[in-house]
């Protein structure tokens, strides 16, 4: 990992104002921001470690723990909310056996919520990796998860 990290970071030596793109790039490659990477980013940019952490922890995009192979994103936008997003989330939690923000033990799924994926006409919806599943009922959520498990 160290070599890979070095490769990603080398064009950014001393470029403090590029901190957010750097964090995005590293997370994009590694899936999350491990401690070592955070220290290396601080060293490369010349920013203090606390500053790098302060910025990374401010933005919702960045995470410090490994993620599941697939992301299971439940939309909590207003349109989804009034059409029952809460029940969709509950069913996803039940079916996956984890709560919001967690990753399944087999590292297959990370369950998260998002403020809005902008498919309001298809509410309530979830996004599994890049695919949107639309106009869901809790029953459909259970079926989708069961179906993927048996695949």
């Amino acid at each position: 990992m160290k070599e890979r990290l070095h490769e990603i970071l080398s064009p950014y030596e001393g470029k403090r104002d590029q901190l957010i793109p750097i964090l995005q790039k590293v997370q994009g490659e590694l899936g999350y921001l491990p401690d070592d990477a955070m220290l290396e980013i601080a060293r490369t940019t010349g920013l203090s470690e606390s500053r790098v952490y302060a910025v990374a922890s401010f933005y919702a995009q960045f995470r410090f723990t490994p993620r599941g192979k697939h992301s299971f994103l439940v939309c909590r936008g207003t349109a989804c909310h009034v059409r029952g997003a809460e029940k969709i989330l509950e069913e996803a939690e039940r079916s996956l056996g984890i709560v919001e923000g967690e990753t399944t033990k087999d590292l297959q799924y990370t369950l998260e919520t998002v403020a809005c994926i902008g498919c309001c006409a298809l509410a309530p919806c979830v996004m599994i990796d890049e695919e949107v599943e639309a106009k869901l009922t809790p029953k459909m959520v259970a079926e989708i998860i069961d179906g993927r498990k048996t695949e």
Partner: protein
Amino acid sequence: MTFTQLQEDARQEWNALRNDNNPQIMIGTATCGRSAGAMAVVKAFEQELEQKGITAHITEVGCIGPCYAEPLVNIAKPGKPTISYRNVTPSMVTEITDAYLVGEDPLAHYTLGTFGDGKIEGVSRVLDTPSFKPQERRVFRNCGVIDPTNINHYIANQGYEGLNKALTMTQEEVVDIMKRSGLRGRGGGGFPAGRKWEAGLKAKGTPKYVVCNADEGDPGAFMDRAVIEGDPHSVIEGMIIAGYTIGSQTGYIYVRAEYPLAIKRLEMAIAQAHEKGLLGKNILGTDFCFDINIFPGAGAFVCGESTALTLSIEGKRGMPRVAPRPRTTEIGLYDKPTLLNNVKTFASAPMIIVKGAEWFASVGTEKSTGTAIFALTGKVNNCGLIEVPMGITLRQIIYDIGGGVSDGGEFKAVQTGGPSGGCLPESLLDTPIDYDSLDEAGSIMGSGGMVVLDEKTCMVDVARYFLDFTEIESCGQCVPCRLGTKQLLEILKDICKGRGKEGDHELLYELSHSVHGGSVCGLGQTAANPVLTTLRYFKSEYDAHIYDKCCPAKVCKSLISYVILEDKCKGCTLCAKSCPVNAISGEKKQVHVIDQSLCVQCGVCMEKCPNKFSAVDCVSPRVKTEVS
């Protein structure tokens, strides 16, 4: 190459496509279309054409607006108006191909209508339908019409004409026309754009920056994404004109990282504009140089605020600068003069330059000119993006364009402006849509989210929902916002949980006013709007929660019970089998019973109970149990 040459080339390409003897198939593949399955439809058409040896052009276009009809497929045959097919699935593709591409049967029952001149028997014209008639597509002029990945399509449709014209004008003349147009900031604040551009021009200091705010974070708003995905050059052209006007050479587009397709479209558009000499050094042969960078935002709602956004580009925490702060036009990005506008504001500028201030102000009201774009969603039949003249009433939008409340529901409220906005009741449906009228009613125009709520929506829960959002998104630097939103949320949660008490109304009012008056930025200052408007217009619902422990909409879990109706239950056991907490007991073919002390109000039993029995009911207040 001169602009005239660019235009001629582009028109040639466009006209060749238009006048081609082969049919054209245009499929809406913006994010909304894709979510509804548009890519599978594209594939199905490709296969179908190949298998049957039919020659036709397939073009992927942007969002056409009516999300409820996605995936949308427009088919134009030579000499005929374009037919728009709605809710197309791959299984319909063969039928459409055989009937209309090969034959002449338009399959009227699959259509939304026709666009363009001419008439097709049995199919109505889309623009004559109640849903489209009140609309005026200006910012959306090209969305769904042109191929957003082809700069020539944009140029052939008056694209970059505004830039070409602006470059022959003085900077002051551009400011003047923008001021006279009356265009107000489309991000929601409504600050006159012309005055902002003037301040940008007059600001001292170099370099100057132009920043486009595409950090569309309001839940329920996705029009900026639609504009970028469907017509990226309109935004870029607007920014170049702004750069010329204020004397800037560098632009940034701050766009949500959650919008990967929009980012891709912008990258492509910027590269194409470079190739044509419309961006970069010596634009169109003049001395003016301008370039645009894309900055993918990392997910913080507060970065929609201008000072937070600029700090974020600098690689810092996006915390709004503390008042008294200079305007961003004076001290903005890297402490330099910065002109920051929303996507739709920039996209409006080119047409204002080409067609004139008077044209722009010819629709709308005196103080709010032009059109407004809304994402009409929630409990409404025709969900989607709409563009309407300012001044149209909420009622026209919901009932004419939106086709009324969905699933036979009863209208309760309409929420505008997202977390900073408010909920307006039936009695205010004749309010005209403009910045000032909505403000007066206690809501805001905001970025354009418009969510219709019906009798199954709990207004206290809606207020709680928005506070939940602002509490999480508060950046935390100022106490009134950080703690105020937290306390407002706690009080609302208590009320929803049946722990509301005498005096909660007053406490909510008092706290709301403190948060409004004491917060540093717009996020905190408007955070209480959902609470204040629901208290003002739906007080009885708060009363029911607080005094009767009843949620009239049967949404708040702590105030409802699920019960099995003895006379309807046939003992099919479906509910008992699916109950996640084994709270339901009963033998086969015997009436089942829910143990209220175990029930978690998930509602699965009600969903599983076959419609022919409908034996599960939801009641509020809760049924009394021996335990409680």
